[in-house]
């Protein structure tokens, strides 16, 4: 019976979140860069109902099944495997789902400049929870009518140095560049923390 007792050679998992509003291209982005075919992971979540103020407790809760896109990138040289989680569409549910945020290194927030408001909640959420993120403005062939500065101003980013990238979620190079920008941000933050 073969046994495998060499955990040292296994790649260490690193979680990265891909967030943004509904229909902004999260699924496409994960598919573009993942080394496996697109997968969807389901979970049953409960959220307290905002509209109903019921002391009974049970009736005031809403239960729904959410689906996350899952992808991975194995980086053998670095000894890690990046696990990409595309956040579910139902924000009022996943914002209360601590397991999704816990342990995440950072996030890419995808925005559609025609519907910027759809990505406000994700930006606010990561800012309030202190998770480093970069903004990716998804558009065909990376062409935008707006500049990065204009997008940043419209998003009311708390940190003016938050990277904003123009990207096409179907382009592997663009998506990789967004992940590289996130790593650069993490490296810069780590360097600042070490210098203090």
């Amino acid at each position, binding site marked *: 019976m073969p046994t495998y007792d060499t*955990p040292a050679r296994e790649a260490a998992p690193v979680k990265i979140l891909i967030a943004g509003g509904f229909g902004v291209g999260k699924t496409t982005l994960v598919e573009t860069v993942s080394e496996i075919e697109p997968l969807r992971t389901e979970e049953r979540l409960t959220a307290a109902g905002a509209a109903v103020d019921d002391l009974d407790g049970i009736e005031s809760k809403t239960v729904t099944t959410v689906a996350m896109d899952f992808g991975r990138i194995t980086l053998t040289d*670095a000894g890690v495997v*990046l696990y990409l989680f595309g956040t579910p569409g139902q924000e009022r549910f996943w914002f209360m789902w601590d397991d999704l945020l816990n342990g995440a290194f*950072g996030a890419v927030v995808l925005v559609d400049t025609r519907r910027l408001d759809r990505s406000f909640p994700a930006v606010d959420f990561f800012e309030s929870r202190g998770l480093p993120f970069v903004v990716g403005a998804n558009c065909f062939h990376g062409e935008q009518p707006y500049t990065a500065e204009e997008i940043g101003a419209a998003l009311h980013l708390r940190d003016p140095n938050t990277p904003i990238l123009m990207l096409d979620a179907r382009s592997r190079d663009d998506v990789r560049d967004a992940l590289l920008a996130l790593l650069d941000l993490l490296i810069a933050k780590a360097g600042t923390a070490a210098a203090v």
Partner: protein
Amino acid sequence: MPDDPQHRDRRRTRLYALTDGRTAAPHTVLTMDTTITAAVAADAHGGLPTEWQAILSMCPAPDGRAVAEIAARMHMRLTPMTVLLGELVDRGLIHHRPPLEGAETTNVHLLMRIRDSLAHL
């Protein structure tokens, strides 16, 4: 009671059937980003439930698969999947590797290694 009749085209196997009747929480807490690798060959033990064998054969060492990926491939939701996998950990059938701790996010050397590998992708 049918479970999500509009979304399910087949019956979901009940959790207690997959976990050999145990429904108590296993000792090991697994998260969606934990990597699972088989500790034994899928056909090493005769009589293992087919679902257990399916998990073992999809998680060969050294790479294994994330809990979230196994759940997706097994068509199970995350929570029942983690309960089942916790049972397999308790029985020594699989190894689990937790994700890197939050402190690693400030490990510049690790971050730069990840960046370099990614850049060569």
